[in-house]
């Protein structure tokens, strides 16, 4: 990295890049808010490491989904089908496992295949039929939800104890889910930062014409990003099945994973127009969400008021980034 440190650059970097530090600042604010709330309400027991890990643990599924959503948004697309895909994955895996430890691996493989197929279809509809990504994935969401409701209407199947390790097990004294999430985040970071594939994801989102001129297939990159996004959603569904010990057709849409994953990505500084942002921002966004959620719990706010505030916070967070841009919106 520093092989060129002899040549001191004469052009200074921007003195302070607001966009670059905004997610960190927001995270810091959320942490302060949380700590102050704990101290003021005298509930300092929430400040222990175990409790902080629990705070993170509550948003693992959201975090995993948001990592995938980051890829879709980086190529200037978006995926609104993640919520119903999460439900589908949870139900599929729980039904296939049906309490039988031998079926864990086949169930995971099937779920991953489902994710790959959905992502491929999303990507192809967007790139080949030229359907607006919002509509393409909304339509896909309806289709998945319809198929799902045709087969199940309640909790279906069950998850064997072995598979509950995903949500409840621990490694090196840390919750396995949390370790897995950070592992996945690191993998995504590595792909985006240190592989040609990652570099081309940014290129396609940043300037599709320049990418095409440089010989990059935009179709391939958009389809790949959607496959990654869907596979992450499927993993989030597996996690939820493990956590709830069974799958139900509403867990995705009830968790608002479509909207919240987008909000997490945007709060993390990835712009909806594509080409700028990254995984650590998304991780920060996910932590902000968990902290704000826990903050509401600590100050014992009404669950419905919480929902109202959630909507407001999401819009405010996006506004926080977009007010400064001069881009026309509609």
């Amino acid at each position: 990295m520093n092989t060129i440190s002899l040549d001191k650059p004469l052009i200074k970097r921007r003195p302070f890049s607001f966009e670059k530090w905004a997610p960190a600042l927001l995270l810091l604010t959320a942490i302060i808010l949380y700590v102050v709330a704990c101290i003021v309400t005298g509930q300092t027991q929430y400040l222990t490491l175990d409790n902080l890990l629990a705070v993170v643990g509550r948003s693992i599924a959201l975090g995993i989904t948001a990592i995938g959503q980051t890829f879709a948004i980086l190529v200037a697309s978006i995926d609104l089908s993640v919520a119903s895909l999460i439900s589908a994955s949870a139900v599929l895996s729980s039904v296939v496992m049906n309490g039988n430890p031998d079926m864990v691996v086949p169930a995971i493989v099937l779920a991953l295949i489902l994710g790959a197929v959905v992502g491929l279809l999303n990507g192809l509809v967007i790139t080949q039929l030229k359907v607006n990504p919002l509509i393409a994935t909304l339509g896909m969401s309806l289709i998945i939800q319809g198929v799902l409701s045709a087969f199940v209407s309640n909790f279906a199947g069950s998850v064997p104890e072995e598979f509950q390790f995903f949500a409840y097990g621990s490694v090196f004294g840390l919750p396995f889910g949390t370790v897995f999430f950070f592992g996945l985040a690191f993998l995504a970071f590595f792909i985006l930062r240190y592989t040609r594939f990652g570099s081309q994801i940014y290129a396609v989102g940043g300037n599709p014409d320049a990418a095409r001129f440089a010989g990059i297939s935009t179709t391939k990159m958009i389809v790949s990003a959607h496959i990654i996004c869907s596979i992450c959603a499927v993993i989030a569904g597996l996690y939820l099945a493990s956590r709830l010990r069974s799958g139900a057709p509403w867990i995705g849409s009830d968790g608002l994973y479509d909207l919240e994953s987008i909000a997490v990505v945007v709060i993390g500084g990835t712009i909806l127009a594509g080409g700028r942002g990254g995984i650590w921002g998304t991780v920060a966004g996910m932590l902000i969400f968990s902290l704000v959620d826990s903050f509401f719990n600590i100050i014992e706010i009404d669950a419905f008021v919480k929902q109202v505030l959630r909507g407001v916070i999401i819009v405010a967070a996006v506004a926080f980034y977009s007010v400064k841009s001069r881009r026309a919106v509609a």
Partner: protein
Amino acid sequence: MKQKPVIEMQNIGKGFPGVVALNAVSIECYSGEIHALVGENGAGKSTLIKILSGVIQPDSGRITLDGEAVSFKHPLESLNAGISVIYQEFSLLPDRSVAQNIFLGRELTHRGILQNAQMNAQTRKILDMFVGGKKIDPETPLSSLDVASQQMVEIAKAISLNSKVLVMDEPTAALNEAECQELFESVEMLRDRGTAIIYITHRMREVTRLADKVTVLKDGEIAARFNSMPAPEDIVRAMVGRDITQFYAPFASPEEISQQVLCVKGGANASIHNINFSLHAGEILGIAGIQGAGRNALAMAIFGHIPFTQGEVTLLGNKVHLTNPRQAIAAGIGLLPGDRKSEGLTLKQSIRDNAMLSSRALAGIFSSHKANKYIDLAGIDLLLDKMEVKAPSYDYEIQNLSGGNQQKAIVARALSLNPKVLIFIEPTRGIDVNTKASIYQLMRDLARKGTGIIMISSDLPEVVGVSDRVLVMHEGTIAAEFSSGAQEADIMLAATGEMGAVA
């Protein structure tokens, strides 16, 4: 010198519906040579370059690279063959670093892992090869570099690609003096390394400073070629000499020009400064200048779109402070945007809807779309008829019309409000010759009826042929003023900052 040219384009011909863009144009460039391609806007320079880079295909003619015939179907093919083109619009990624941009699409990897350190080091090495590159950090994101440095990145990209041929399209359009000097040195460095450089410009200074050979294009044909450096006047004469008299309407006579309608004193904002001028009823005031000189910024300031932050504007004797186009239109100013597609048209709407847009916008929102206090449907039809807008029906979507007819519909939009001041930005860009003449006639007719007209144009013959008076802008301010009948060469000198004193 050298035996064979690196690149040779022979008898290239290209036609677009209604126009011949290029007719039997040949140009060649040897290794280690700078070949200047000059000509006015619309002379066919960009078409020629697009053919060379494979963006469009020629109708006739052949291209040889290193003696072998080639034909490019896609820009990527020409790039791989060793031809780099630096357009005025850079094809760079604003959020990626300098090194990432230079290696875009051919990143260095080792077992699938990006070799960022290596790419940064190589970029450093390339940037150190020329003056303009030394101060650029390979890890800086592109968006934090100024335009001149971004241009250096494009040059570095060409070097890293080992291009045999480099085409530069008006590279100094947005640079200041010091940056120009750095660019020239970098170009010379490339030449000394043996690159064949085709350098497009219309600034004489750059031609005399850099070029070994000069080809002058005019109206899609070669007007002159010089194998050694001629006198600048010879080049200019070849560029502009054409029969223009019957094309333009006669100038206004002194008695036709009456009272002052618009006056700007000390006007300034972020992109322009110290603007002082006045406009009279009956007059066509041309504003010339190179790209980035502030002509559009001036128009948008008068029109309130990007308002003046200083100075005072007097319109029809009243001091006004216009902060948005709506106020300007209501106050009696009309504007024809320069970029028809992105600023002038609502493509999916009918011709009538486009023509009625402003009058409807200013009338009440609940009033009928058929008639308002300014005009009604019959009135707009009459106006469109009078301007001879050719369409099967005025209910037709405007996107199906030719550029000239679209432009007339936008003129009708402005006229429906009876403006006292009318600003035309590039009124004939992309319009065929016959329609051009009718638009000039229309402008003169409007002036006769007492409208004050400002025309902003990059087309020098048009500026000279139409304007009763010409203001020349340079670096954000008015650098010179000419009365009718000015010489194009003088205007060009003033626009490029060559002329110290005002004529």
